[in-house]
């Protein structure tokens, strides 16, 4: 082996890497929030009394969960302009990630709602509360709590999958790595370090999500 390892270019390009990390976190966080909100909306549609609405939600969820994420990204960025819907790379990335996340979140959230005992909804009804209030105040927190660990792994996965948006040149960590690689040809060093950076980001994200879980979705239980 004659390859001489040299990690010094990474030091030269640390501002690009730092900017990439910030972008990755930014688009991931926006997509998490948007994905969760859309996912909850999809769950509501899916449990609505209207058959067409339920069908619509299920079709959407199945479509997203059974097509490759990269194809979804390409469709939004390269395909939608044919309909006059144009986005810059970052917008397309956030949109693709949010829509993708929403389908998985919907599936998870539905499990949470089903985990809430029927007696809880009945107690709300017996008090005279309407359906919206029952879901908002009675079902929501216990439902999220029940599926919080799955939701967190889904969010971590979303953050890792965000590397795919480099394919449309959305500026984030993997895109920065490619750019540094093109200039320095230090592929091994760069992708090894970037891999470790993703690992560190996942760990941090998990910790932050766990803290949010403790603050908002935990309560004493038997």
């Amino acid at each position: 082996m004659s390859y001489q390892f040299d990690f010094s270019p990474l030091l030269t390009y640390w501002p690009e890497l730092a900017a990439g990390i910030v972008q990755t976190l930014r688009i991931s966080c926006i997509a998490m929030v948007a994905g969760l909100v859309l996912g909850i909306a999809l769950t509501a549609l899916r449990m609505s009394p209207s058959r067409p609405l339920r069908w619509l939600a299920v079709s959407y969820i199945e479509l997203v969960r059974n097509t490759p994420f990269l194809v979804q990204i390409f469709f939004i960025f390269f395909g939608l302009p044919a309909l006059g819907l144009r986005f810059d790379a970052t917008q397309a990335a956030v949109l693709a990630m949010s829509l993708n996340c929403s389908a998985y979140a919907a599936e998870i959230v539905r499990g949470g709602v089903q985990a809430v005992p029927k007696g809880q909804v009945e107690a709300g009804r017996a008090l005279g509360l309407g359906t919206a209030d029952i879901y908002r105040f009675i079902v929501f927190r216990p439902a999220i709590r029940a599926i919080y660990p799955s939701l967190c792994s889904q969010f971590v996965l979303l953050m890792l999958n965000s590397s795919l948006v480099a394919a449309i040149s959305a500026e984030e960590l993997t895109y920065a790595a490619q750019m540094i690689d093109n200039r320095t040809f230090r592929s091994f060093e760069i992708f090894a370090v970037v891999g470790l950076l993703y690992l560190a980001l996942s760990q941090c994200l998990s910790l932050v999500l766990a803290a949010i879980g403790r603050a908002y979705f935990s309560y004493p239980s038997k």
Partner: protein
Amino acid sequence: MEQSAAPAIRLEHVSKWFGKLKVLQDVDLTVNRGEHIVLCGPSGSGKSTLIRCINRLEEVQEGRILVDGVELRGDGRNAEDIRRHVGMVFQQFNLFPHMTALENCMLAPRRIHRIGKDEARARAMGHLERVHLADHAQKYPAQLSGGQQQRVAIARALCMNPDILLFDEPTSALDPEMVKEVLDTMVELADAGITMICVTHEMGFARAVAHRVIFMDRGEILESAPPEEFFSAPPARTRPDLPRPDPQPLRGASP
């Protein structure tokens, strides 16, 4: 209000099916204001179903149900209005696990009566005091004993200022040593004059507070009599083909 002359609850020829199974058979029942009814009968006889029809947790297929003179509409549109003055206490308490005892009591008044936080808190504390749980207001359901949870559930129902309270076996899920504290609370409520329908097998409670004891079997009301009469006479429910409720078992009262 003209309705004040109407009985608290009226069921006229009520029949209900679950699929093909007929669980209420032409039930007629009038409950007057301030009256305390104890409903008993063997398992599966339709006791829970009957009281759940009164606040429309269940739909009926035939007959009419009137609460304070207002008929429950078939489409359930006025169910929420009726529920607002009909409180219900469940066998499994059904407290909201993510809210403290106090928050459990504040939610519905805030959302439905649209009262402010301070007023809701004052009202909730008043009712928690009434069930002797003011000291536990900040605890979560998981931190309370079964008896305490059931009393919080009673306080939560009272916070809506109901005219009528429905109890579905409120002491059946409790350890024996906690039954008395819940029954005592219910006796106090009865003394305060609220209209009550209580599904229970606590016959000591029935003797103490019931104006009428009603015996159901297979979806039919077979007997309805004041407790003295109910517990002495040998009528329908002693038909050999029907199980007979044990007339003695008030825990704590009997040896």
